[in-house]
């Protein structure tokens, strides 16, 4: 997915609706929330995200919150449904996790880019950190339907923060779990096990989603082994629709030029090698517009 040298636009399928919460269940450290979204569901691709306004009317929280889409169901009992996995971190996500079924929220979806799906059956490795595993299960389904072999590695600080639902697990050929405290799976980080899994299963492509530090570490491994890597980045957003310019990231285009690109429009899914990881929230030298 070459970015930067073309005119970037908002996801053409994005729609803003008042969506009713159908269900809200606590799963480990997270909440699994389902919204009735009608025909939006059929336009969502793995990697897309949703932007939700929080706090209700007269809220002092003026900015929209972005969440990776876990999966969608085209036709359920209530029509199309969209599901997310939320960690109650800040005031916005905490408000959302406290909303009961029946409540309507203002929601925009689908937003952003999606994971590139190979045209031929390949051997894919999906790597997720914490609730970053959520969008990988939908991706796994799509890849499997294309005849791909799918292996998965999920990591978190502790067992409670591993998100791996039963039906999700069924869609993968192997699942390796790592936790930093050793409370479940192998003790360590996802990157400790990558090289071996890549070699054993002759992996062709890595898809990842999780905190930026983890994505950077995965990209290092992928780069060294010469394996394609697509990742869904996590940057703080104020709007999710490309107008606020806060979620930018230094990305090298196919023309070799580094640009500060919006992760809501040119991402969240980007080629791992196109991100200037070492820039660490600075503007790298030679970036377009720095002369």
């Amino acid at each position, binding site marked *: 997915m070459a970015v930067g040298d073309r005119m970037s636009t908002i996801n053409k399928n994005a729609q803003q609706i008042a969506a009713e919460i159908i269900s809200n269940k606590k799963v480990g450290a997270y909440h699994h929330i389902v919204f009735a979204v009608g025909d939006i569901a059929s336009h969502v691709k793995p990697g897309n995200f949703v932007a939700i306004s929080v706090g209700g009317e007269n809220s002092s929280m003026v*900015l929209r919150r972005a969440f990776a889409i876990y999966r969608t169901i085209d036709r359920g009992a209530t029509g199309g449904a969209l599901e997310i996995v939320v960690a109650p971190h800040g005031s916005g996500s905490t408000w959302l996790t406290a909303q009961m079924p029946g409540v309507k929220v203002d929601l925009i979806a689908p937003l952003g880019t999606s994971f590139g799906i190979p045209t031929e059956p390949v051997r894919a490795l999906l790597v997720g950190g914490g609730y970053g595993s959520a969008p990988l299960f939908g991706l796994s389904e799509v890849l499997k339907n294309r005849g791909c072999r799918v292996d998965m590695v999920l990591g978190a600080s502790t067992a409670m923060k591993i998100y791996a639902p039963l039906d999700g697990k069924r869609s993968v050929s192997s699942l390796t779990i790592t936790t930093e405290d050793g409370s479940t799976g192998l003790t360590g980080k996802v990157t400790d096990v990558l090289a071996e899994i890549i070699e054993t299963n002759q992996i062709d492509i890595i898809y990842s989603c999780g905190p930026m530090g983890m994505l950077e570490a995965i990209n290092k491994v992928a780069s060294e082994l010469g394996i394609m890597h697509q990742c869904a980045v996590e940057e703080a957003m104020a709007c999710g629709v490309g107008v606020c310019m806060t979620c930018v990231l230094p990305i090298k285009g196919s023309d070799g030029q580094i640009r*500060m690109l919006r992760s809501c429009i040119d991402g969240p899914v980007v080629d791992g090698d196109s991100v200037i990881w070492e820039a660490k929230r600075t503007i790298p030298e030679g970036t377009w517009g720095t002369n």
Partner: protein
Amino acid sequence: MFNFQTSIGQVNFANPIFTASGCAGSGRELAQFFNLTELGAIVTKSIMLKARSGRATPRMAETPSGMLNSIGLQGPGIDLFLEKDIPWLREQGANIVVSIAGESVEDYAVLARKLRSVPGISALEVNISCPNVENRGQVFACHPTTARAAIEAVRRNIGGELPIIAKLTPDVTSIVDIATEVVSAGADALALINTVLGMVIDTNSMRPKLAGKTGGLSGPAIRPIAVRAIYQVREAMPNVNILGMGGVASGRDAFELILAGASAVSIGTATFGDPSAAMRIKRELQDELVSHGFDSLHEAIGYAHRSDGGLR
């Protein structure tokens, strides 16, 4: 039939709801949610001479009823803007107000020359709330002399027809003094207010939250400052049109700025929370005006200044 028309300088607009510069992207993003021709005008992101990468991240922090931003005027530069963004906006049939920003008086002059013969522009917003690199990074709009110099440079180079709207910062001792100066320098109208300088310290990292350390505060938190600035300037210069902005999130809020003296109202931060906010506010404002017994927007402009003390 309710008359929603308004005017800024010599130019008429079908309704008083504008976007705020820097809060509408290139227009393409919002066009996904509503027809841009429904706006009184789209005010483009302040454009500079050259392409700008903007500042490092984090660029944003949410605050109670507001947000702090330090984008650093990221943008494509005037040439690419005129080549790509303006023709697209013209194709949509949108009313366009181009916002410009410079780092020197000469920048403003060059920008005005590049824009003077561009067709399809309704007005020029001159954002003088930028650091002047020739004067130790002091903000143009903070001193009467530099504010005047920037506006004069635009006036000399733009020709007679395009109205100049000078956008002022509220971070001054007397906004009326600055307003008086830029009007005498050739500004036809005023945009009030730009963001208010602020800072947030992250109490976990115990450092400023923004990479740029300070940022511009916007959102409902600053609305009373906007109302005050508009009211004061309207009182001093009742014949100068004001494009009001600052934390407008509802029709009621837009009505408040109009009562203070704004002829039109820009929607900024509210768009980040709701991309169709401008359309909702437009509907709500009309309802608000009608329910207060006004037959036209024009009658309500500056109505809070009336001396008879009567209610409507």
